[in-house]
């Protein structure tokens, strides 16, 4: 190692992550006059969760039917089972309108019919509210539109293949990061007036997930190690009808949701019976109305009772839908299914819950500022807006709206901030740089870091998944500690370009920390609410209408509760006096 192969860089606003939230933040920060570096561990605008979005983007545009953001807000709070931060949920619903109109003005191509945008009626919404891009193209269209806007602004430097390893904290303030340039193996020290974490969620912690590879909770780990608090970490959303069987090549496992929006479909147990209504929800013939937490619960309880489908889930059937209707709704997708040997007029498919989204995340104020001055968060990396369960369609709206907000806030902070000097940054960076400088020996037999990640995913799926118990959570915590011991202090892999063991080792370092955060929060919440279901504490406990926060300082976890953040009495009064537009 020598100091000269460390690359030093400097900017006003550094954004970690280039998905929907990161790109939106970059656009807003640059428009506010900041020089921006947007770094992503993968390609720009291709690797996060945004591009995976299949269909719905919820926002009260009132195009399909009269609407008002306050209706969307009421649905968001209801879905969140009492735990949404009201200021954050309000920001999402109220300012989301501008975000989605902005995307429209940039030519994203929201589906239109009869002279207006088409809005689908997704579960949990009181009316049709979700715009989309056909066919199943919402995520790619949103990502492409933002990529184009980002590329037009030369104040934004886009840097792919950069894995951020640790934040630099100087006197309690975020002043930059240490990163690894994957293409060369070079180590980077990037100084910044403000840093925005836009790294998405943590669904890669689970064996069955709908995530991209990058969603291993990197941003939560960065925030924890920097001393920032996380919130609501126990609430991991499982998407109820993830594709299970037969094996499909080239489809995202959440693909069946749009089919449900457009065509309904019937959810059946292994005996071919409809079962959702047995758990106190409207029957499926009333339309697709059951929320994600409730459907996940119903499917897994059927499986537990021995009434699952052969692969361990439920059947989803569209056999009653005429082929002409299937074609009209999904055109080329029907041919792609045929190439996989699936004819929906003849075959049922099997579905089961998969980890999909994280309601929890970094605790921020309504300006997206974290506990650490100079450190902001945006998108799924933020916790609090969605409480114990996220409403369908809120994720993209949140990514763009919170991204724009974080970009503005970070730009304002950076303008007034005194940047750290290169020598000071180098001193702060020394421990992380030394860690990255390790060159490990060839792996011992059995010490396969990719297999360790798979082991962690199994532990989380089995014990920290949709159903939890004290026994299982304690077991998970012991297994996580054991895995950490097995990995030891030395990072696997070496200092060369794109060393897959080194990348896995850095990922596992983050994943173990974040997995522990989820398990600890879940263990402490002795009730069942939304996405957090405890076998040993069934039922919602009003005494637990509280958010949990979690921090990790000097190796010590601090778990605390706080009252749910409400609007001020004046704000609440103005909402209450609002006469709901278009209310039946």
């Amino acid at each position: 190692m020598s100091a000269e192969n460390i690359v030093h860089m400097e900017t006003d606003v550094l954004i970690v992550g280039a998905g929907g939230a990161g790109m939106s933040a970059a656009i807003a920060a640059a428009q506010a006059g900041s020089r921006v570096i947007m770094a992503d561990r993968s390609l720009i605008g291709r690797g996060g969760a945004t591009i995976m979005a299949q269909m719905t983007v919820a926002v009260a545009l009132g195009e399909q039917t009269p609407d008002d953001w306050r209706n969307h807000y009421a649905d968001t709070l209801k879905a969140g089972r009492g735990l949404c931060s009201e200021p954050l949920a309000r920001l999402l619903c109220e300012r989301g309108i501008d975000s989605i109109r902005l995307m429209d003005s940039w030519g994203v191509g929201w589906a239109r019919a009869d002279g207006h945008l088409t809005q689908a009626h997704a579960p949990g919404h009181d009316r049709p509210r979700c715009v989309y891009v056909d066919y199943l193209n919402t995520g790619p269209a949103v990502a492409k539109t933002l990529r184009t806007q980002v590329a037009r602004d030369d104040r934004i430097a886009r840097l792919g293949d950069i894995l951020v390893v640790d934040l630099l904290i100087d006197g309690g303030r975020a002043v930059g990061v240490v990163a690894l340039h994957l293409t060369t193996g070079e180590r980077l020290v990037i100084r910044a007036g403000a840093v925005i974490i836009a790294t998405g969620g943590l669904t890669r912690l689970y064996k069955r997930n709908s995530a991209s590879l990058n969603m291993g909770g990197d941003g939560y780990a960065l925030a924890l190690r920097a001393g920032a608090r996380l919130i609501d970490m126990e609430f991991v959303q499982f998407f109820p009808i993830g594709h299970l069987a037969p094996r499909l090549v080239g489809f995202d496992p959440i693909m069946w949701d749009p089919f449900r929006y457009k065509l309904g479909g019937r959810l059946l147990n292994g005996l071919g019976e409809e079962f959702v209504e047995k758990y106190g929800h409207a029957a499926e013939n009333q339309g697709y109305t059951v929320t994600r937490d409730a459907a996940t619960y119903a499917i897994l309880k059927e499986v537990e009772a021995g009434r699952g489908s052969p692969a361990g889930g439920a059947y989803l059937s569209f056999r009653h839908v005429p082929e002409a209707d299937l074609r009209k709704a999904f055109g080329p997708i029907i041919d792609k299914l045929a190439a996989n040997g699936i004819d929906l007029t003849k075959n049922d498919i099997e579905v089961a819950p998969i980890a999909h989204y994280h309601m929890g995340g970094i605790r921020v104020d309504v300006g997206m500022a974290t506990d650490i001055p100079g450190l902001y968060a945006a998108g799924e990396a933020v916790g609090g807006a969605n409480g114990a369960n996220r409403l369908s369609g809120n994720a993209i709206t949140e990514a763009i709206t919170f991204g724009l907000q974080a970009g503005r806030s970070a730009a304002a902070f950076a303008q007034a901030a005194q940047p750290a000097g290169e020598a000071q940054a180098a001193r702060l960076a020394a421990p992380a740089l030394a860690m990255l400088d390790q060159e490990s020996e060839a792996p011992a037999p059995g010490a396969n870091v990719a297999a360790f990640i798979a082991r962690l995913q199994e532990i989380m799926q089995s014990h920290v998944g949709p159903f939890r118990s004290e026994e299982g959570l304690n077991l998970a915590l012991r297994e996580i500690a054991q895995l950490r011991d097995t990995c030891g202090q030395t990072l696997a892999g070496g200092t060369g370009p794109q060393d897959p063991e080194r990348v896995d080792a850095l990922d596992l370092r983050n994943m173990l920390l974040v997995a522990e955060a989820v398990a600890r929060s879940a263990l402490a919440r002795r009730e069942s609410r939304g996405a957090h279901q405890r076998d040993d504490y069934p039922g919602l406990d009003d005494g637990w209408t509280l958010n949990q926060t979690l921090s990790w300082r000097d190796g010590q976890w601090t778990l605390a509760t706080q009252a749910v953040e409400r609007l001020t009495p004046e704000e609440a009064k103005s909402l209450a006096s609002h006469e709901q537009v278009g209310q039946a």
Partner: protein
Amino acid sequence: MNTENHATMICLDVQRGVGAGATRIQRYELPAGAAASLLDGLRWVREHLDPTLALRYSCINANACKECMMLLDGKVVYACVARMQPGATHSVAPLANKARIRDLISEIAPVKERLAGEQEDDDE
């Protein structure tokens, strides 16, 4: 290996090497059930046989990120949608027209989105 066993296995002859350095072919044998797609198979190899094998992908199975481009039997494919033939031996290599970084990873980022590209811009 008898015929019956043979049909339950897939062989991948993977071109390996770092940068402009030497290239070698490494053979991996895996159960056919572990590889509906080439990407499934390569991920299985990393978890079960060889964590040092480098490949890049992001979205895993959705064919959304377009990162998993490589050569399968000489043709450019997305590994996540390329199907494997039980009993077959496939050759796997990095893209021929891009610089190799390691094993199956090529430099696919647009020039304006590379660290080196950024530095060059700064020098202008």
